[in-house]
């Protein structure tokens, strides 16, 4: 099964905070706020809050000073991303035993593709309870008891159903008859739409509070305010856009780590450690010549907790310095809050094998050329491409193969930015 029209959404609000409360149960009776990861130059703000903290007036996005002023007994927790990622991973792995179509969306929200599972697991209600039983294998009972379950056609409908559900009482929206989804969506608040705060403000100013009101707006009016997104919002609100659940095809990450003899807080030592780990990553047999497109670096902090950063490369690379640069930049922006006992680097996204990307290689060993650019059209081509060009010329008299070259990429006139250049054998 490659995708599923019907989704069973499992949603555990404040997933990360709940994990912390399970780890330190004595915090459960206090006011707790989990902070966002700290960025250099940016303030840490409140991310998730316990019920008691909420009752004191603490809100998400609030600066720490304001939150503490409102709730003097507030316990502030630094995020532990490695712990949360491990829990989410365990949830996804366990649910993959139920259906092959599992789509993790964010920490605490997973869509299961349930098309055709009636024969295996029975009615939609039985399927929901089965999924919760599976969660009990990897999560403590208090967490599973707080999970909200929604089932509907499409991921948006299921997400709305899960938001409308109460723990222990799944909301199941039938696929039939036509219009059932639209009727279910109509009274739901617009806050559930995938919109930035500015977009929601605009809807509020227009007096639009429910999905039914969005569905009733004329398309040109919505597009005038929101552009192409307006059409998507309307289709979602009317239950016309059904996004299927798609399984996550994640390559297995490659992880290398380094235990420091004594905790390291010095930036230079951290960079040297990073270089050593990238060297090991590049010669790792599991890399199988693939270039790396996404990296995660992190570590375990002295005194407990973890720290993590991620970097996505503009194009897949296989050179240490090219990989180290974005990671170092991220470290400058978000340095570890304390000294590290262990440093790790994971390759989480991959490009084509270097043997493939080097088709357009222009002398940079082991990696593709900068932007695939050449100084002139006569730069030597790899043998495989050269042979293909010659053969095409012999067979059809011409080789309709081109490369895209930058002419004046910053020109204000679109037709002057790029051109096609014939490949010569």
């Amino acid at each position, binding site marked *: 099964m490659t995708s599923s029209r019907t989704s069973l959404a499992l949603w555990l609000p404040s997933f990360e905070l709940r994990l912390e409360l399970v780890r330190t149960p004595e915090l459960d009776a206090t006011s707790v706020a989990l902070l966002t990861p700290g960025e250099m130059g940016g303030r840490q703000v409140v991310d998730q809050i316990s019920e008691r903290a909420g009752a004191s007036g603490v809100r998400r996005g609030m600066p720490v000073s304001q939150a503490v002023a409102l709730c003097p007994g507030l316990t502030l927790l630094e995020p532990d991303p490695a712990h949360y990622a491990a829990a989410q991973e365990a949830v996804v792995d366990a649910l993959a035993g139920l259906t092959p179509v599992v789509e993790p969306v964010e920490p605490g929200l997973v869509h299961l593709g349930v098309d055709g599972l009636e024969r295996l697991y029975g009615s939609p209600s039985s399927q929901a309870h089965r999924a919760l039983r599976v969660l009990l294998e990897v999560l403590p009972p208090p967490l599973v008891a707080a999970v909200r379950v929604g089932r509907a056609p499409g991921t948006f409908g299921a997400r709305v159903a899960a938001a409308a559900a109460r723990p222990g009482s799944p909301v199941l929206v039938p696929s039939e008859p036509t219009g059932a989804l639209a009727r279910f969506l109509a009274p739901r608040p617009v806050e559930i739409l995938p919109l930035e705060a500015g977009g929601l403000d605009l809807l509020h100013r227009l007096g639009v509070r429910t999905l039914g009101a969005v569905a009733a707006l004329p*398309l*040109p009016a919505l*597009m*005038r305010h929101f*552009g*192409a997104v*307006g*059409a*998507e919002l309307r289709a979602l609100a009317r239950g016309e856009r059904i996004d299927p659940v798609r399984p996550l095809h994640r390559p297995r990450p490659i992880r290398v780590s380094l235990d420091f003899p004594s905790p390291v807080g010095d930036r230079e030592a951290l960079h040297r450690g990073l270089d050593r780990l990238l060297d090991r990553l590049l010669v790792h047999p599991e890399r199988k010549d693939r270039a790396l497109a996404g990296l995660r670096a992190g570590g375990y902090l002295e005194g407990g907790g973890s720290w993590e950063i991620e970097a996505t490369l503009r194009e897949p690379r296989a050179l240490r310095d090219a990989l180290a640069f974005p990671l170092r930049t991220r470290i400058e922006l978000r340095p570890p809050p304390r000294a590290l006992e262990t440093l790790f680097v994971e390759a989480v996204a991959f490009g084509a094998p270097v043997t493939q990307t080097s088709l357009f290689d222009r002398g940079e060993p082991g990696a593709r050329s900068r932007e695939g650019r050449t100084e002139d*059209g*006569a730069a030597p081509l790899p043998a495989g491409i050269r042979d293909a060009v010659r053969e095409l010329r012999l067979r059809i008299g011409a080789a309709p193969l*081109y490369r*895209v*070259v930058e*002419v004046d990429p910053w020109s*204000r*006139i*679109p*037709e*002057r*930015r*790029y*051109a*096609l*250049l*014939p490949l*010569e054998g």
Partner: protein
Amino acid sequence: MSRLRPIPLDLPRKVSVRVDGDGRPRAVRGRRGWVGVAGIREDWRIDDEWWRIPLSRHYFEVILEGGRPLLLYHDRMEGGWYFQ
């Protein structure tokens, strides 16, 4: 060695456009007839190369009914409409 001649990409193509009283696009003629413009995302002017062959274009990034985005411009020198 033969000389290689680059082929420009994104060359403008002529298109019929209906405009409103302000000269802004209201509908575009496609293969299957006229398609209304649902909204204009952005518009800007380019006036360039006055020293050589003057170029003056008024660009409109529009969304057609149905949601398709399209980049149009009105050639202010010769009066025609193009898309890219």
